[in-house]
């Protein structure tokens, strides 16, 4: 019931770099700390729900549509009613799991202006998030979509890159943009699928180099939740080490 000094960790980076698996394993790691955790799938591909083994019936986009229709149909007549509706629907969209809670953002918005509704939603999410110790957001490629559609106050940004030149260039851009936006946010880069590559990392603030994980590939192939990954798995142990220092 009490309010927390919430750490909001967002994962960004080029598609295919491994953001979703990493985010899921960070949720697994944080579960070990017995803290209150909210996982948010902000990627329209909705991979985090698979990786965490949850099946959301409602997304924030559904909620956005509900609010929009309620305004159009004049079912809500005041801001107070809209807030009441947003809080109710947000709670009904929340999957309350053992060890972590989960919200799915859903597909990108339909045509039309959702600015005012997004503002109501962000307020409701902000109120909800204040009750968690950690929020892990699996984002789209960039941070802007996370800010616009989910939450403005990201405290920790993890940029995930593989060893390809393009992915590293995107990581550079994201890091530069993040630093331009705020000096207070903690920001670091994880190079995923690290082999014998000698790629140039320049001045990127590298948090860690993670190897290619056969376990993740096997779990993905079988459609299994990464929460079930062994605590002794070498990749998972490395993720824990990296994140322990970062958050």
């Amino acid at each position, binding site marked *: *019931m009490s309010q927390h000094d919430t750490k909001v960790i967002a994962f960004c980076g080029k598609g295919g770099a491994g953001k979703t698996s990493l985010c899921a394993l960070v949720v697994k790691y944080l579960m070990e700390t017995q803290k209150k955790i909210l996982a948010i799938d902000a990627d329209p591909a909705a991979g985090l729900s698979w990786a965490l083994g949850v099946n959301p019936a409602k997304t924030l986009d559904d909620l956005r549509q509900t609010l929009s229709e309620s305004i159009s149909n004049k079912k*809500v007549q005041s801001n107070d009613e809209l807030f009441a*509706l947003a809080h109710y629907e947000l709670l009904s969209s929340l999957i309350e799991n053992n060890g972590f*809670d989960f919200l799915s953002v859903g597909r990108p918005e339909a045509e039309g202006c959702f600015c005012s509704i997004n503002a109501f939603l962000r307020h409701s999410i902000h109120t909800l998030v204040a009750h968690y110790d950690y929020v892990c957001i699996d984002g789209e490629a960039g941070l802007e979509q996370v800010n616009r559609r989910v939450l403005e106050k990201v405290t920790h940004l993890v940029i995930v890159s593989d060893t390809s030149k393009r992915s590293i260039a995107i990581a550079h851009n994201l890091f530069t943009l993040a630093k331009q936006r705020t000096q207070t946010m903690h920001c670091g880069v994880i190079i995923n699928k690290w082999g014998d590559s000698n790629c140039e990392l320049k001045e990127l603030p590298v948090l860690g180099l993670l190897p290619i994980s056969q376990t993740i590939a096997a779990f993905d192939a079988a459609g299994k939740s990464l929460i079930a990954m062994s605590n002794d798995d070498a990749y998972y142990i490395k993720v824990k080490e990296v994140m322990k220092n970062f958050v």
Partner: protein
Amino acid sequence: MLHLDIKECLDSLYTRKKIKTFNVKDYSPWQLSNMQQMIFKDETGAQLGGPYGSLSLACIYNDVVDGRLTLIGDEKFSPQSVWGRLTLVSAPIENENDYYTHLQELTLLPLKNSMEGVMIRIQPSEYKEWIRIHNDHIKKNNIVTMMAQLYQWYKQKEWVQALEFVIITTSSDDVAMLQPLVEKQKSIIKAFEKRVAEDIKQCDSCDNNDLCKEINLLFQKG
């Protein structure tokens, strides 16, 4: 007409088993909190309504016994149950605006205040209410103390002359007995909105003519 509908509904509800009456004025109200509560599933000792089915509405009504709580179900909390709440309020009604704003205030009032260990969520247009009680508060409190606090909040409105509650926690079928009142309330509010929004000169040709006659009777009764 709504008054007769309410009376009919109450008469049916009073035939239910497990019916108890309380005077909430005789009970210490639930302790207050100065912040809105968020109660997660793993902290929840009791859950009322929400996904388990709920209907909650307030009606302006004259024949009210101030402070009476008619409870269909048990006053002790069970882990989860359906939730029906009919709040009957005696209040002077002078115009459309009064009626509409009073109903809005009555509906949203639980969100403007807070009880320690009680989370209330409301879906106003669907008349849904979802209440979670924290584990730490289920033993020393019950539905009567919760309604005693709600009573105090409502009574702080200077226009509330008297109010009583009917609470249903027994079954979805029992809660559904409030549905006709909800439908009537929806149609009355719709008619009110039309009256306020449009300058209707030909009442005889208006779809809401019958309802408006009832609305006029509400003013007379108020």
